[in-house]
């Protein structure tokens, strides 16, 4: 009996901790093509920005593998998967057999088929090695173009600003963070970026990358050319399903899992950004590529692999993103839709924006800019499917809290485990 986990980030760690809740001894093997001790991918922007040093890029303590009886096989790619033989073939020729397998291979950056894409000084923004390479060219006063104004692109922009790099960020859509922001929020973010000297170009695309061996600029849709010293591509992430493509494991965009994180093949589980799991808001399977989801899916997979019965069916998109001096949090629904009522509060003077999405008397999503304190109460209202009709007008008010809730509900939540 053994457990094998392919992947070494958040979902993998969640799985180890989930397995060890129930099974303290059976060996676990972790396989990863990256040579590093487990680290969280989103930390790369903080590394690039100089806020986190490489020695602090760890998700769990240095003795994590030893303490959990994990054999890490790092820097070696899992090349092929044979689910009939229950075997993983490694790049170096080794064959690893498993009793229970978890696939937690995460996502991989989308690379557009652009002319000139193979030039030097064009980087993805996904792994530690990416920022180690970017670091070499991101000198003070250098010029960068970041393609993509969503989460990871904006975190790249922030890090570059902190390094004193002159940045232009480009997006094909008419807004910053188009999946989360409306026009007002987008304009707030744009103003902040511009205040820090960032040039924001929306509704445009890169036609080709120019330069000799090294990228020296881009040609935009309107025919204008923009010079730069390097380019970061942050145009989105796809599920990294390379390993399972030619197996019987069901995939759509990601690996399809049930709410125990099982795939359709017995003893094969999947968790994290590589999956399409149940989305509580959308009530169907979707990609939910965020850390809290990766951890919980991993933990759930681990517990079930170890023979427990654990269900996770509350996953949905939520994000917190400080961007320069803005604080932004959002969860759940982020666009208008049928049956959805929207409540907005905008205090231009204080630079505070709040938006709530309400459906059938339940909170189904929200966006908060700057006044983000106690946001988790809203997240919990979504998860609990609380009928908010008796206090809907108080959402987003200063001082909103449990005091705004009906007494019975407040006591129910606050006295769980206490006495009333």
């Amino acid at each position, binding site marked *: 009996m053994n457990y094998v986990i392919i992947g070494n980030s958040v979902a993998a760690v969640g799985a180890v901790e989930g397995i060890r809740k129930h099974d303290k001894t059976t060996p676990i093997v972790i396989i990863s093509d990256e040579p590093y001790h487990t680290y969280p991918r*989103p930390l790369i922007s903080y590394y690039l920005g100089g806020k986190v040093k490489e020695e602090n890029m760890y998700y769990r303590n240095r003795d994590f593998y030893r303490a959990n009886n994990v054999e890490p096989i790092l820097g070696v790619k899992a090349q092929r998967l044979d689910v009939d033989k229950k075997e993983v073939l490694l790049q170096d020729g080794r064959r690893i057999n498993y009793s229970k397998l978890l696939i937690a291979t995460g996502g991989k950056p989308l690379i557009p088929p652009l002319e000139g894409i193979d030039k030097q000084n064009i980087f993805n923004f996904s792994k530690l090695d990416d920022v180690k390479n970017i670091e070499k060219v991101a000198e003070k006063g250098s010029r960068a173009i970041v393609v993509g104004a969503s989460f990871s692109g904006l975190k790249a922009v922030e890090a570059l600003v902190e390094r004193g790099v002159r940045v232009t960020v480009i997006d094909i859509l008419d807004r910053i963070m188009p999946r989360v922001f409306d026009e007002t929020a987008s304009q707030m973010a744009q103003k902040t970026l511009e205040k820090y000297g960032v040039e924001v170009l929306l509704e445009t695309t890169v036609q080709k990358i120019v330069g000799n061996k090294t990228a020296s600029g881009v040609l935009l849709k309107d025919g204008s050319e923009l010079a730069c010293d390097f380019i970061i591509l942050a145009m989105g992430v796809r599920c990294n399903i390379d390993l399972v493509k030619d197996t019987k494991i069901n995939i759509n965009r990601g690996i399809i899992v049930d709410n125990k994180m099982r795939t359709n093949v017995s003893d094969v589980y999947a968790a994290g950004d590589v999956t399409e799991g149940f989305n509580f808001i959308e009530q169907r399977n979707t990609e939910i590529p965020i850390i809290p989801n990766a951890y919980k899916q991993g933990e759930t997979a681990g517990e079930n692999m170890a023979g427990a019965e654990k269900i996770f069916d509350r996953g949905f998109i939520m994000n917190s993103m400080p961007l320069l001096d803005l604080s932004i949090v959002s969860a759940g629904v982020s666009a208008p839709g049928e049956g959805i009522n929207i409540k907005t509060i905008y205090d231009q003077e204080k630079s505070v924006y709040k938006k709530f999405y309400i459906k059938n008397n339940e909170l189904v999503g929200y966006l908060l800019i700057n006044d983000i304190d106690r946001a*988790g109460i809203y997240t919990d209202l979504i998860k609990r499917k609380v009928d908010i009709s008796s206090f809907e007008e108080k959402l987003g008010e200063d001082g909103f809290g449990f*005091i705004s809730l009906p007494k019975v509900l407040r006591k129910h939540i606050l006295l769980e485990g206490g006495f009333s």
Partner: protein
Amino acid sequence: MDNFNTASRKRIYAKEEVCVGCRLCEIYCIAAHSEYRHDLIKTFKKLPKRPLPRIVVEEDRPLSFGLQCRHCDEPECVKACITGAMQKDAQAGIVINDIERCIGCWTCILTCPYGVIMRDYNSKKVASKCDLCIENDIEPACVKNCPNEALYINASS
């Protein structure tokens, strides 16, 4: 090794019926976490920058009550933390934020169902929360100093 099985569990609860909203819990919490440890006078007279209170007092007169970290068995903040700074100490049964590793991404604030993790911009951007006064090895200062016994500890094992 096992992050979520707690050896002991201590939680602070409030009796909203007897809370008078005096906010002494905040004052004593600030002092307990200041460099003058529990010395109210020195904390408030000598420190230009005082720590944030780690207790939230909700108030809408005549109702008020204090609220602090519940040190959950299944802590959302720990599972959501993007750096691994937020951890559950199984032995002590408390959730602690390692401020050396915290980068102030506020994902814990996004996920804490009680809304009791605060942004602390005082020293650097880190998340601040109740530590049950564990470092001081005393009864939590808020509970000890509540004049109306509106805060109480519920311990179980």
